[in-house]
């Protein structure tokens, strides 16, 4: 995806976006949101608040009922969805790896469908496994032979394969044990510092949001409550933000909970 310089530093922009599924039930209502280049925007909210749907509107897995989403300054409806998606890395919970592909083939997925020469693919896969901290001899393993943390690393490597400027991450660390999760969160921060991708990250975990986000967009019932920096977020007087903060204040640990965003 070529960067569009006319689009004033915005990678993604939601303009009055609504999305309904079937007749009536509105999952997203009148969403206005801007994602700046190289920032990590965290979509925070409880299950069913519309975070995942928001994510899917970006890579055109869902089409808005009204309004438009601009990616690199161009509405998603004007993109060829295949081209759009190949320029956006996508990481989901449990990684969504292909069980019949080895780690190497999983990571090589996008380069392969983009017809890269095989020696370049091989080089890229080796490089990426190192980037996400996986031993090179895991390349020939199948996903079932890996731990949850390793699978998630492969998922990240796969999303980075064709070096897309934008990364969408849907609760990527949600199914991991607390120690592995903390480890991957730390590595994500280091990686993001180096790679400077535009990241939209979905989570229901406030701690994760405060740790990873440069901005946090709190969603509730398909509406955007507020989009604030972590400092602004913790000091906010917005009743909904306070409610979310209070809910976490009263919970000594949030580890191990799994959201159904």
């Amino acid at each position, binding site marked *: 995806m070529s960067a569009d310089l006319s689009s004033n530093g915005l990678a993604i922009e939601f303009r009055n976006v609504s999305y309904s599924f079937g007749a009536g039930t509105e999952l997203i209502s009148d969403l206005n949101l801007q994602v700046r280049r190289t920032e990590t925007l965290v979509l925070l909210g409880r299950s069913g608040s519309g975070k995942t749907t928001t994510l899917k509107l970006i890579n055109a897995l869902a089409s808005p009922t009204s309004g438009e989403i601009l990616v690199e300054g161009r509405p998603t409806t004007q993109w060829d969805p295949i081209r759009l998606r190949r320029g956006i890395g996508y990481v989901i919970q449990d990684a*969504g790896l292909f069980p019949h592909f080895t780690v190497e083939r999983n990571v090589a997925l996008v380069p392969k469908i983009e017809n890269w020469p095989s020696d370049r693919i091989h080089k890229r896969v080796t490089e990426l496994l190192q980037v996400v901290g996986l031993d090179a001899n895991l390349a020939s393993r199948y996903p079932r032979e890996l731990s949850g943390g390793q699978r998630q690393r492969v998922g990240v490597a796969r999303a980075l394969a064709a070096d897309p400027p934008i990364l969408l991450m849907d609760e990527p660390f949600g199914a991991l044990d607390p120690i592995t999760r903390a480890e991957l969160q730390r590595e994500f921060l280091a990686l993001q510092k180096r790679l400077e991708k535009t990241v939209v990250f979905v989570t229901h975990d406030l701690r994760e949001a405060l740790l990873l986000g440069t901005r946090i967009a709190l969603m509730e019932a398909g509406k955007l409550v507020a989009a604030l920096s972590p400092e602004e977020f913790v000091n906010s007087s917005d009743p909904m933000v306070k409610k979310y903060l209070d809910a976490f204040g009263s919970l000594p640990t949030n580890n191990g909970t799994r959201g159904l965003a």
Partner: protein
Amino acid sequence: MNVFQFIAQNYTELLDHTFEHLRMVGISTLLAVMVGIPLGILVTRWPALDKPVLGTANVIQTIPGLALFGFLIPVPWIGASAERLAILALTLYALLPLIRNTHAGIKGVDKSVIEAGRGMGMTDRQLLFQVQLPLALGVIIAGVRVATVISVGLATIAAAIGAGGLGEYIFRGLSMVNNQLILAGAIPAAVLALLADVSLGWLEKRLGSNLVVAQQ
């Protein structure tokens, strides 16, 4: 004379009938695979076709074997040869398990895997051939297995319209009230069915391991 002595004395004739039998089952299963699997895929693509296609295959399945042979006799070219007739009938019977299993196999592939593929920019065609079909292969082979085993049994009826096969002995034995003769047809047919079942079962297990993992 018991059945084993009969088999020992007539083994060349028995082999001929076995080959006739295998030919009918083989050709019809192959045809059914060539029609049934694409139909099964089609049905997953256009859900509106789901009920009519599966319904038709279901109705065919309920027609008794001999009656189906009878229905097909007036069909031009087909009706002119007993073997063609038998092959067509067996093909029609084999369609249901193939369509149904292809459909179920593809539908059974983990949604998150499909979504990940789509989200990464795979086209429908790439998803079908690289993800859905490979992961559904175990279930599809299970359909081939069921179809083959049913065909081996049904093909014995083909002898009633003169198409040959191991049914020859069974029908001859029935008219002569000779149990040994019936067994001379029934035992090899049972052995064929078991062999088909075991070998395709092995294949299914080998290819199906992917699907089990996909649904973890």
